[in-house]
């Protein structure tokens, strides 16, 4: 009898897993011994890291999107029919259209979403670049900006942990090129007592900001934004004035995770090595959806996906476990408009970012295009 793999989520994590499994299980898919189905929410696939460049006009919107049907291997039926309930006991996923999909193995890759409403006034008073509409509006606001106070505000939890630093240094370069930095003050706020979660990155960022005259406020967890008075106030009691507020909004996981009782905040409790849902042997969780205490980032999803591909293939063809996930994360870091660096770490190796260089900036620009090979399972 055919074994059914069901992938819920058509983003980066789900797509890499589906395409990778097709490359590993071609024979079984041809014979009908294994079948695979994906449920998604959109007919397009977005390269989310590209949003960073939209406010500066450095990438075209069209470059961020591909038709999901063309990114996904043709052997995987794809339905734009969002899951509304995931029942891991009955091994059944119900969708918006009322259909029910059963599975032998389930992959949950429903990602994360912006929760602007969690902070009063944020939606009305802030700009952001973590979705297309926000990035478009930020581009307009930046084009009209003629100097004043900019606050770059970071909230918890959020994905792509280096993006707040990237946008800050890119704003500095962009405004310097426009001759506006002499009448602009940039203040960067961060929730904990240093400038980045990764201590070596924080140690690099502090002198870099000092050199550029970028101010910073640590221990700043946003309580509210006053869009009329143009102020932002923290739970710790500090208030900053702004003319342009750029926020990294707080995130939650998908609503279907909460509605299905699979995890508070939409984060599924997941074994950090096996990437199996805690308590399940047939439910893998990948990418932002897990509650694993590591970065919510595209590279995390990618390395997790590779592990899940190996384990699902091995389980289905040999009945054996293949390997554990080692916690690997690799992030390019733009350190301005012309330089970049990178940072990688895993569960046992601490990060050690190298000095910024033009070459790493070019690598990141190249990867912005190479991504489509990753999504197809080729890179």
């Amino acid at each position, binding site marked *: 009898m055919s074994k059914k793999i069901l992938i819920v989520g058509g983003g980066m994590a789900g797509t890499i897993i589906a395409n990778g499994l097709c490359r590993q299980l071609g024979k079984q898919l041809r014979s009908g011994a294994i079948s695979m189905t994906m449920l998604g929410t959109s007919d397009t696939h977005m390269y989310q890291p590209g949003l960073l460049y939209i406010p500066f006009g450095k990438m075209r919107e069209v470059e961020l999107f591909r038709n999901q049907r063309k990114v996904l291997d043709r052997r995987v039926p794809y339905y734009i029919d969002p899951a509304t309930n995931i029942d891991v006991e009955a091994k059944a996923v119900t969708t918006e259209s009322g259909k029910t999909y059963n599975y032998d193995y389930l992959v949950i890759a429903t990602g994360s979403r912006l929760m602007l409403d*969690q902070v009063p006034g944020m939606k009305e008073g802030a700009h952001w670049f973590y979705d297309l509409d926000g990035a478009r509006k930020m581009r307009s606001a930046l084009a009209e900006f003629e100097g004043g106070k900019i606050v770059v505000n970071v909230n*918890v*939890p959020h994905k792509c*942990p280096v993006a707040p630093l990237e946008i800050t240094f890119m704003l500095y370069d962009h405004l310097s090129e426009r001759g506006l930095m002499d009448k602009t003050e940039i203040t960067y706020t961060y*929730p*904990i*007592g240093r400038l980045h*979660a*990764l201590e070596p990155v924080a140690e690099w960022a502090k002198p870099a900001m000092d050199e550029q005259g970028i101010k910073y406020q640590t*221990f700043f*967890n946003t309580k509210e934004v006053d869009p009329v008075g143009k102020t932002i106030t923290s*739970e*710790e*009691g500090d208030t900053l004035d702004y003319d342009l507020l750029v926020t990294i909004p*707080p995130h939650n996981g998908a609503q279907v995770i909460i509605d299905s009782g699979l995890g*508070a*905040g939409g984060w599924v409790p997941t074994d950090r090595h096996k990437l199996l849902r805690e308590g399940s042997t047939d439910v893998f969780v990948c990418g932002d959806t897990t509650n694993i*205490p*590591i*970065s919510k980032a595209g590279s995390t999803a990618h390395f997790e996906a590779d592990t899940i591909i190996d384990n699902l293939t091995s389980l289905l063809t040999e009945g054996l476990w293949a390997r554990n996930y080692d*916690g690997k*994360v690799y992030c390019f870091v733009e350190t301005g408009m012309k330089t970049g660096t990178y940072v990688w*770490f895993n*569960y*046992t190796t*601490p*990060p050690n970012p190298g000095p910024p260089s033009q070459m790493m900036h070019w690598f990141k620009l190249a990867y912005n295009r190479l991504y489509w090979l990753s999504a197809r399972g080729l890179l």
Partner: protein
Amino acid sequence: MSQRKTIDARGAFCPGPLMELIAALKLVEIGDEVEVLSSDKGTVNDVPEWVAKVGHEMAETVAHDGYWSVVVRKAK
């Protein structure tokens, strides 16, 4: 009745124990406790410093073999 949620942030470099704690506190009720397990000794100082600034309460800090348990009670 108050509850305690535990986060195992041992070996977590990013976002790290304090960021995990802040995120977890958003998801529990006032009076509930969040316990963070951390292999970074800095957590023993970082967490009380933030808790004092923001107005939550420290419940306890316990040293174990190679890691620390830091418990915070949500107060607001």
